[in-house]
């Protein structure tokens, strides 16, 4: 029997696994997919919000502001790509100027540091490419951009390194209350646990209802995005928001931490599992974005994607112990969920302790993590890296300058990827303008070699996303 079982390997589950791995407790994370961070965590705006948006007094307000500060520290410690670039909420008319003032008041009450209302002139000097129609803006210097999947992966890796268990490809099919805790039925072996934490993202209600009375339903909200080439990555210097309105929270335009430009999202209801994009959705995003930043060159678009949010009828996160003692939940996590996750995790540890889990800190907890990112090295450091390991001398992804050494490193870290996109999330290979056209086969070959599996069994991403359907009549290169 383990002490704690966490259901769901998104950023919330991984943050909690990391926080619990500091203590002498047996903890296991159950994830139905073949990697962590592959749901909502990998498909969102990738913004570390400042925290002026949520209503004061809500869980969202508290965790957002706390999470913003924790992420900064965490990213430094675990070597996660993050930049504190600040955000602007643009106002285009009097009504919106009032809204900006309201957001300023809300933010101040929530404890957001450094908020300022800027004049149009100040905005233009900071952002020469925004619309000249801007009247004023709310500036939040603590907002940032992050690699969202790496926030989850880095914490999961560190937790595993410190003894936490990760069960991938493990889908929870039922939960029973037992004498000493819970029995979790899965597609594999059942898991016995004293405490269970439901962090199942878009499916959190389904997990919840396995033990609890039905009190909330997830009606997923879908958001569609454009991702543009690095040639557009310097179009703006801050996260550019619009005022929230009847049409939704508005479309943002922002550099990504990887140097691209992200534009989106729209907001529409969707079914679970629906990650499609539509012509109408993409057109809406373009039209709305043009209000803030008129000159985005969509010829340089390199990818569209959409992500789901676990919207429920409750206008806040649903966090804490459920009606069933020992069964906890981190549910209804929508924006600002990514920012909040590390703060929620720390709080959940306290709740588990209050629920009777005894926590003794490990004396040998090791949360050092360093990732070699070749393209960020100086000339001298590059030369030195190749001298030490010739695999750093071989570029596999030419668009993003990712070396074979980095890919091999990722395949031998504590939570190794098994798919081409798993490598992409850890190294950045295939994230560039050719979208893996050139490097995909190479990466597949390297995974096959390093993990000793047949190349044809290496998936694009999730299990079932196969690439190779057989051999040609003459077979392969020998």
């Amino acid at each position, binding site marked *: 029997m383990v002490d704690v079982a966490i259901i769901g390997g998104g950023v919330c589950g991984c943050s909690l696994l990391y926080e619990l791995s500091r203590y002498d407790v047996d903890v296991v994370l159950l994830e139905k997919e073949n990697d962590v961070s592959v749901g909502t965590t990998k498909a969102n705006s990738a913004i570390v919000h400042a925290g002026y948006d949520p209503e004061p007094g809500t869980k969202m307000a508290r965790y957002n502001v706390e999470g913003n500060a924790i992420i900064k520290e965490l990213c430094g410690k675990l070597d996660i790509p993050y930049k504190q670039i600040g955000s602007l909420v643009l106002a285009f008319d009097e009504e919106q100027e009032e809204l900006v003032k309201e957001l300023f008041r809300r933010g101040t009450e929530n404890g957001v540091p450094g908020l300022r209302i800027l004049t149009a002139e100040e905005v233009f000097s900071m952002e020469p490419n925004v619309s000249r129609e801007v009247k004023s803006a709310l500036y939040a210097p603590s907002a940032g951009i992050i690699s969202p999947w790496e926030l989850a992966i880095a914490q999961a890796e560190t937790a595993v390194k410190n003894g936490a268990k990760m069960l991938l490809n493990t889908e929870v099919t039922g939960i029973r209350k037992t004498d000493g805790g819970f029995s979790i039925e899965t597609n594999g072996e059942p898991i016995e646990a004293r405490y269970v934490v439901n962090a199942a993202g878009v499916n959190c209600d389904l997990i919840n209802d396995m033990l609890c009375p039905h009190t909330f339903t997830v009606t997923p909200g879908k958001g569609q995005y454009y991702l543009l080439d690095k040639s557009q990555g310097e179009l703006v210097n801050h996260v550019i928001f619009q005022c929230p309105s009847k049409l939704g929270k508005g479309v943002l335009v922002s550099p990504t931490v990887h140097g691209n430009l992200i534009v989106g999202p729209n907001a529409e209801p969707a079914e679970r599992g629906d990650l*499609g994009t539509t012509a109408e959705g993409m057109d809406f995003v373009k039209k709305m974005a043009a209000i803030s930043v008129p000159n985005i060159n969509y010829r340089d678009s390199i990818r569209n994607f959409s992500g789901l949010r676990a919207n429920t009828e409750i206008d806040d996160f649903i966090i804490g112990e459920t009606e069933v003692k020992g069964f906890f939940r981190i549910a209804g996590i929508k924006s600002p969920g990514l920012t909040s996750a590390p703060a929620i995790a720390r709080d959940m540890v306290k709740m588990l302790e209050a629920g009777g889990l005894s926590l003794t800190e490990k004396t040998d907890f090791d949360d050092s993590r360093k990732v070699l990112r070749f393209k960020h090295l100086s000339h001298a450091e590059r030369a030195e890296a190749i001298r030490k390991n010739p695999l750093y*001398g071989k570029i596999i992804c030419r668009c993003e300058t990712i070396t074979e050494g980095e890919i091999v490193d990722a395949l031998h870290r504590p939570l190794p990827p098994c798919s081409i996109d798993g490598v992409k999330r850890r190294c950045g290979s295939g994230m560039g303008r050719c979208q*893996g056209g050139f490097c995909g086969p190479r990466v597949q070959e390297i995974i096959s070699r390093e993990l000793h599996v047949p190349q044809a069994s290496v998936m694009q*991403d999730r299990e079932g996303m196969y690439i190779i359907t057989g051999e040609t009549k003459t077979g392969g290169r020998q």
Partner: protein
Amino acid sequence: METLYDVIVVGGGPAGLAAALEANKSGAQKVLILERNRELGGILNQCIHNGFGLHYFKEELTGPEYAGRFIEQLKDTGIEVMLDTMVLEVSPDKTVHAMNSQNGYMQLKGKAIVLNMGCRERTRGAIAIPGDRPAGIFTAGAAQLYMNVEGYMVGKRVLILGSGDIGLIMARRMTLEGAKVLGCVELMPYSNGLNRNIVQCLNDYDIPLYLSHTITDIRGDKRVEQVVVSKVDENRRPIPGTEMVFDCDTVLLSVGLIPENELSRQSGIEIDRRTNGPVVYENMETSIPGIFASGNVVHVHDLVDFVTAESQRAGKAAALYAQNGEAQGDIFTLENGSCVNYTVPQKVRPSNVEKFVEIFFRVNFVYSNVVIQVSSGGEVLCSFKREHMAPGEMEKIVFPKALFSKIRDGKVTVSVVKEADAK
């Protein structure tokens, strides 16, 4: 640390091979080819079909054979080759930053440089095809690499979007390997591929070509399951009610090629928004003196034979630059007139021209019975009749030096007009 070369060639595909060999022939002593792949030949290595070399060798070769002819010639030249070597930066002072496992991180100095990085394929993201995001969507070239180099099949029932040459070639290739190719879908009312490929790759195998159609939805959770194709109107907008559903596991994209100019941009070379390649002079020199470019990195070619010819001019000019230094003199620019999408070169220095300058260009639509006019200051200097012109076929005209004296204001316009409207 720095080694001085006469000419450094970035890229060992057909363009780089021709440029290096010609530079060597033209007197460059120390020539180096930097190739990022594990062998020379570039994209030709995966083009195992024939049809290469009809112009240059007057015979039909496969891609690897065509490349092989040039690789063979390297032997006695003393041209240095570095494989598995990535160029990370070309600085305006002609220092090339490159790296490989053996030599580590290198800074190589060239008296002249030729850029031959080729091009890459447009992806799904570039054209925003709506729908789910399953596996089974490939650019035609990526599928070709899997099949012809790695020896793996990537699909059983295939739909192809775009009728560019690689798409057409792959329609035949996948059919020959036992896959069912359900059709080739083209947004425009005409194909962008060579006519001979339409006949030999589609018609001969009864593969339907759907002109004025596009993909409006892709369905599938893990692997492609269905693709929806709709007819488009004259503004290329899908027409509701015309949807056809194809059950297939694979989509190949042949929707255009983009010259790979990240290195050129980084070094500050002027780029032409229309070609997506460097602005070049008559001898393929870019806006930075001593840095030349040729092949698909300058503009996308249909036939490798023309890549070879263009790159020989670049290689020769690079060798001359390495020996004599900068070319001087007045400049005239070539402007795009009616129906013309771009020209290469974009600029000409008459003092650098012996007898004539060859002008390459593409038209923006399909035309028949037209006249190409080269004019300046309102006067037509020379004209050329054409029965048929199409965007998929690169056009070449020869503009004699004897006419340069008639150029006004340093500007020459290339346009295409109907025969009846010709002056």
